[in-house]
């Protein structure tokens, strides 16, 4: 992904006059780096500060509380955390196999002429603003899925408890579909890059030994890029967890766990988006900020882990080369 920094730093110039120019430039650009650092610190501090009243009030029981009630001023995030995990993991379940398949297609199977255009089209999917996707999801995809796809699944798979219910054009399933659309371009474009960078002698060697193309993908390419794929999936996971707008448009904003995948629910991010405007009490606003703190922590952990895995993989590939 990123290229290597030059390992040698050229010295600053010799003459006194020109040295001031160098110092000035170094100073100004270094200031930009300081601003970045301050920004990150301020981000964590400010969000935590806004959440403080709620953290003081509920502490860790916020994570296990199930009631979110602005009237009694009691807030608990358990059902929201559950909703976040179900929608994000559900989206990953669909998106990851699909994205890896697309990565294989774009790096191995597609005729060379269409590889770049199709890659660009898949990446264009990521450029669709989430609010547009949500609008489409609630007004177009929702009714269509509710009329044609959900009844089909309920009829054939309704014996699975969680899949039995009434079709609806809002709810967990819709949120999963929308998040899938958002995650696929991320994971697919990274997979494609990873697969394209597998040394061709490894691929050719496997084919020469008699493997079919699918066997070659399965036994050579995927293990070779395994770490990178994990990192890509984690990035997609982070994206899905944090999506507020499109999810809140389609998920139905309920206060408790639904009985089935078709029922309305809510996620942490979507709850913030839904209630930001009409907070009745300070504690409610602080609790929404507490949700933001949790989201920030989740995203930090997921992101840093993904970068760690990717860095380790890059080092290993360089070492092996």
């Amino acid at each position: 992904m990123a290229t290597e920094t030059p390992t040698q730093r050229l010295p600053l110039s010799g003459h006194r006059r020109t040295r001031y120019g160098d110092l000035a430039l170094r100073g100004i650009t270094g200031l930009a780096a300081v601003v970045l650092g301050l920004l990150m610190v301020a981000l964590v501090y400010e969000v935590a500060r806004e959440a403080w009243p709620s953290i003081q009030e509920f502490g860790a029981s916020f994570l296990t509380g199930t009631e979110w009630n602005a009237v009694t001023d009691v807030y608990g995030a358990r059902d929201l955390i559950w909703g976040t995990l179900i929608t994000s993991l559900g989206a990953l379940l669909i998106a990851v196999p699909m994205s890896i398949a697309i990565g294989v297609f774009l790096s191995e199977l597609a005729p060379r002429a269409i590889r770049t255009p199709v890659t660009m089209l898949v990446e264009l999917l990521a450029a669709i603003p989430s609010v547009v996707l949500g609008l489409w999801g609630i007004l177009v995809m929702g009714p269509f899925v509710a009329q044609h796809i959900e009844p089909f699944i309920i009829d054939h798979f309704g014996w699975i408890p969680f899949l039995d219910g009434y079709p609806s054009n809002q709810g967990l399933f819709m949120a999963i579909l929308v998040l899938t659309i958002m995650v696929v371009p991320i994971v697919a474009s990274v997979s494609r890059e990873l697969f394209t960078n597998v040394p061709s002698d490894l691929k050719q060697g496997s084919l020469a030994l008699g493997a079919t193309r699918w066997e070659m993908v399965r036994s050579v390419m995927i293990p070779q890029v395994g770490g990178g794929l994990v990192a890509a999936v984690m990035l997609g996971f982070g994206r899905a967890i944090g999506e507020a707008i499109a999810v809140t448009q389609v998920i139905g904003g309920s206060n408790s766990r639904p009985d089935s995948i078709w029922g309305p629910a809510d996620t942490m991010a979507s709850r913030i988006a839904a209630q930001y405007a009409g907070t009745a009490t300070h504690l409610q606003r602080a609790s929404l900020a507490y949700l933001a703190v949790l989201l920030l922590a989740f995203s930090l952990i997921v992101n840093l882990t993904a970068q760690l895995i990717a860095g380790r993989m890059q080092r290993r590939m360089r070492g092996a080369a």
Partner: protein
Amino acid sequence: MEGLATLAAIVAIAVLAIVIISVAKKGLPALNVDLFTQVTSTFGIPGQGGGIKNAIIGTVIMTAIATAISVPLGVLLAIFSSEFAPARLALIIRITLNVLAGVPTIVIGVFVFGLLVVGNGYSAYAAGVALSIVQLPVVARSTEEVLLLVPHSLREAGMALGASRARTVLTVILPTAVGGIVTATIVAVARAAGETAPLLFTTGIFANAVVTDPTKPMASIPLVIFQGSESPSAHDQEVAWAAALVLLVGVLIGSSVGRLLSLRSRRRIEQTR
């Protein structure tokens, strides 16, 4: 197996096509002169408003503010990271930018809300700041990539000719990289124009009139779409579709142009190696 992979790719592109076609189909009928000359209206009161003029102007102004903050900051950051910072510090900066890129935009909205909105009220400045935080990693990472592509020999040649580091950077490196910086800016603008969550917290309530004072909240295209999508009024939904069409066309064109230009400028820089 191979058929499944092809199928997956087809499904992905089909979804893209379906979304674009749906937005076009629903948005085109509502696309008329009124859309661009009238301001937003509440509850679709006939004879009053029914357009998105103030939203378009608001998005343009707020995106401009955001870009004016994020591009200089991002370029300076990239210069520091690629020219002056020791390798470990450059790595930390890159990791930090990647972390920032992964922060959910709704959290950024909450952050700027507490920082700038509490006590001061909604404003386009606050929205601009929030959007610039979203843009910063995009600009900084792309610029750093382009700066690193410039061959080291150019820097050494500058030094050998007696130019200072500053002069080399400003008169040799940057001009070579300027194409990449421009495309990074285009992609950043497309990104900021489509963000909704930061706007909820910084300019969430706006007047149904054209506002050009950045200390006041302004209407924005994403919020018009968001509010229209949740509204039971068919008129509001119509306006939302039309706004979505305008936004989608702008964002997709911006992203595609940015992507294509970046490929071309990258090829050109590599030819100087």
